[in-house]
Structure formats: C-alpha cells, structure tokens
C-alpha cells in the first residue's frame, strides 16, 4: 500500500506543472529514459527537458526529504517517548539550518554544508533534551517547549548572521521557508547517502524502539543498553534531518503528520511505523509540493507554508490526545 501511494504521488508530481505535457507522452518519455527501452513518445525537446531535468529531480528530492522528515519524526517520538517530537519542534531543523547558514556565509567548501548542518542539529537536539529534562523531567510538553525555545534562539542567531551578509540574504531566506526548487540532480545526490544510512539504521531499530516504549528502567531490566541505543537512533535521525535541511530548508510538521496518521491506521509498533513513515512521508511531501507549485501558479508557495498549513491543526489534535 505504501509503495502504491509513493508511485501514485510520483506520477501526479511528474504530470502536474505550469507547462501542460501530454500524459501518455510523459509516461512514454519516462519509460524511454530507462536503459534498454526505446519508445517514440512524441514530446518536444523542451517538454522532455522540463519533464526529466526539472520535474523529475524535484519530485525525487521531495520524496527523499519527506521520507527523512517523517521517519526522523517517528524515531524521535519513539526514542523520547513523546508523541509531539518532530525535527522541527525539537529545534533540530533550526540547528541544522544555522549550521548550514554558517557554512554558506563563511563561504566554506560546499562539501562542508552537511557536516556543519549535522553539527548544528546534534547540538540543538542535545540542548533541547537536557533543557527539557531539567525543567520538566519526563513531561511531554516540556521537551517540546524546550525545543521551541532552542529553535527560536538558533533562528535568531541565523537571522543575525544573514543580516550581516546581505548579499546572501535573499537566497538563504527563501531556503528558510522550505523549498524544493532544484535544477538537476545535485541535491538528490547530496541527500541520498545520508538518507540510505538513516533508513537502514532506523528501520533496523524498530524492535528496540518497541522495547523502549515501556520506559528506560524496564527496558534496561530487559537487557537493552538504553543510553547507547538512544544515542545511535538520535544520531541517525539527526544526520538525515540535517542533510535534508541543507538541501531544502526548514519544512515543518511532516514528522508529526505522517507518523501519527500511520499510527492511527496501523497501530503502535515502530517496526511498522518507521518503514511506513518512510514511504508515506515521500508520498505526502511530493503531493504537498504539487499543491505548493500549482495553487498560486505561476508563482510558487514555499512548501514549508503548505506543510505548516496542514500540520499546525493536526498538531493541536495530537496535543489534545497526548495531554488527555
């Protein structure tokens, strides 16, 4: 079912855009682009370029970013035993954003953007965790409030850095609001290895997350080294989040919407939630992007605006159930 959803979303994502490209022609052109397949698709050169060099990489990027954010959200929720955890709300995305901005304004090598983002994201999640525990123990809301505080602080630092470098302001500003605009495959290639590492680690951790759902003490009595497992899972989720933020900016609420929707339908087990979040996160963000680029066509809405529009009300619902 998850795979069908991804396939359907990808096809919609490829077919919808400001230029009308014939549907059958598009599908034939896609097949034609596969090795060993020769098809007469009847598309013009421009149409073919739009399809394969603009829409396709963008859809692929949306799918990867959506997967990462949804799976990271699910992992944070499990590891912190907190239904409100999400890369955006924990300040992880802001930390990654600050790291990436630092790399941009200091004109560091492009290859350093992701390591910078990762360092920023890890510091952010660490501080959020420590602050959240010190004020509220294990309370569900204190972790999220700490995340909001950490996120706002880091965003403030980021804004300060940007104001000092007005020449990069416009570029970075559109990126803060979250965007998937891309030409060619560079971003996809950048994100893919981090995505793969995180998927493998997090999918493999599903059973341990289930054991940890009975709490640290009982999990330890069941032979789980809780500290180490938590560290590995947080690092894996944060790694992918930081890489996603480096290419697409801050896109919020995907990590709340998708895992909770999966939970509603498929139950509590992280062995199901994580893989399903990977698939449905991809489908969700690709469709959200279709929406973002058509609703105000020919202009484009930043995709972060679309996800926040859907996600904020959803968050309120989750909050109500969590605090009941």
């Amino acid at each position, binding site marked *: 079912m998850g795979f069908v959803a991804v396939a359907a979303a990808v096809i919609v994502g490829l077919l919808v855009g400001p230029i009308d490209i014939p549907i059958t022609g598009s599908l034939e052109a896609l097949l034609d682009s596969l090795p060993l397949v020769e098809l007469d698709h009847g598309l013009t050169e421009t149409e073919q370029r739009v399809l394969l060099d603009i829409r396709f990489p963008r859809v692929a990027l949306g799918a990867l970013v959506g997967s990462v954010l949804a799976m990271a959200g699910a992992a944070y929720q499990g590891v912190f035993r907190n239904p409100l955890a999400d890369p955006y709300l924990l300040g992880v995305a802001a930390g990654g954003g600050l790291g990436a901005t630092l790399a941009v304004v200091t004109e560091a090598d492009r290859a350093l953007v992701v390591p910078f983002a990762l360092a920023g994201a890890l510091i952010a999640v660490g501080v959020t965790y420590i602050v959240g525990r010190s004020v509220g123990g294990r309370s569900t809301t204190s972790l999220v409030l700490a995340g909001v505080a950490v996120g706002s602080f880091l965003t403030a630092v980021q804004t300060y850095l940007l104001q000092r470098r007005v020449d990069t302001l416009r570029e970075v500003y559109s990126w803060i609001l979250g965007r998937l605009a891309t030409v060619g495959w560079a971003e996809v290639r950048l994100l893919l290895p981090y995505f793969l590492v995180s998927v493998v680690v997090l999918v493999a951790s599903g059973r341990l997350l289930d*054991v940890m759902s009975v709490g640290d*003490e*009982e999990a*330890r*009595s*069941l*032979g789980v080294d809780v500290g180490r497992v938590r560290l590995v899972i947080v690092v894996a989720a944060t790694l992918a989040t930081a890489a996603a933020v480096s290419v697409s900016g801050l896109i919020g609420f995907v990590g709340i919407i998708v895992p909770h929707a999966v939970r509603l339908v498929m139950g*509590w*087990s992280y062995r199901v939630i994580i893989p399903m979040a990977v698939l449905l996160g991809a489908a969700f963000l690709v469709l959200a992007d279709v929406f973002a680029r058509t609703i105000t066509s020919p202009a484009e809405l930043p995709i972060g605006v679309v996800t926040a529009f859907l996600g904020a009300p959803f968050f309120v619902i989750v909050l109500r159930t969590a605090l009941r």
Partner: protein
Amino acid sequence: MIRWDDVAVAYSGVAVLGPVDLLVGDGEWVGLIGPNGAGKSTLLRTAVGLAPNTGTVTARNGRPRPGPDVAWLPQRPSLPEGMGVADYVMLGRSPHIGYLGRESRHDREAVKSALTALGLEQLARRPLGTLSGGEVQRVVLARALAQQAPVLLLDEPTAGLDLGHAIEVMEVIDRLRVENRLTVVTAIHDMTLAGRFCPRLVLLGGGLVRADGTPSQVLTETTLRSHYGERVKVIHDGLGPTVVPDRRQP
C-alpha cells in the same frame, strides 16, 4: 539463587539501604516486608543495576545481567495502551534476541507457553488498555515468565488487587516457582498474605534486615510493633499468623 553481600545504596549522601547481606537459594521464595521507605524496592533494584550500590550482588553466573539472569517487575509497570497482550509478553524475550535480530520460533513458543501458564490465551490479541487490574498483573507476570530468567524479583505484585485476585496472583507465582524452580523475591505490604504464601519472610526497617525466618518467627507482635507502631496485633489460628489493626469499632 541470588545473593546480596554488603550491599548499600545512598542517594546524595543519605543512606537508604544497607549494608544488607542476604542469600536466597534456588527455588526459594522470600517475601520482603517492611514499612514504606524501608528499602524493599531499592534492594530489588540493585539486582538489575537500577540503584547504584556498593557491595556485590551475585547470581548463579556471577554479577547478574539484567534480562537473562534476573527478571524484575516494578511496582507500576508501564503499559503502552495500544500494545497487544502477546506483543507485550514478547518484550520479555528481548534479552534473548540480538539488537538487530528478530524473534525466532523458539521465542514465539516461549511467549505461547507463558500465555498458557497464566491462562491468557483468550486475551492474546487484546490491547493492554482494555484489561482489568487482575488481568494486567497476570499479563505482566507472563512477560517476566517469558524472560525465562532463573530469578524473579517482583515489586508489590498484588498492589491494587482485591483479596480474591491477590490470592490468585500469589497462587500463580507459587505454581510458576515450583514448576520452573524459580528463585522468587517479592516485596509485599500485606503481611498476612505474605505469611500464607512465602515460606520465608525478611523484614526490612530503615534499610537494614531486622528479621529473617519463617512467617511465625518474623510476624510476632514484638517485632512488628517496633517497626509498624504499637497498634498492630497478631492473631494465631491454625493457618498461621494474621496481622490486624489493634483497634475496636467505637
């Protein structure tokens, strides 16, 4: 067996337990009694590494590994609401599955026989959130049983149960102990109940062992009054000591 040698616990400089020396042999059942704050839970927690302690705790193969050597159940186990009974009992198999491993047929059989032993077959698919207090205790015991550890440490297994269900749980523990030759230590507040089931009682007071012996040796008015106050009365009939409040309806 499980043995505590010179075990002491202090939280920020304040001694809460010990030093305690205690040996519980294979197949033995010790009821750990004592007033609130006497250190009962802390003593159990030292055996699974949840209370940093001085001294040593030893199981059959040396220092007990939490999981394979010792099964521990806290006073209030957390019960993820949506989780099904069989899945919850499967958590008990966790110590036997590698970090990245999956359950084997052997694990599924262990879960099945734990469910059978506690008469839970009918409830296997029920979510934990829908169970009654008595059912929850049996499910939690099934998880500990599936763990197949030779030592079972239970913190207040009858707390919150009515007398009928409390007796039922104690009977189940006794049967499991005999069938599987388990070493069992239960912290328990109901001294009469403890005396009817545990062949040996250990009374903790102020973190130290104050009495250790058969129920009729430990449950004496003199001993209990020095720890529970003067208004405790012990009645003897053919069944063993019965501890009651020393007060008449005015």
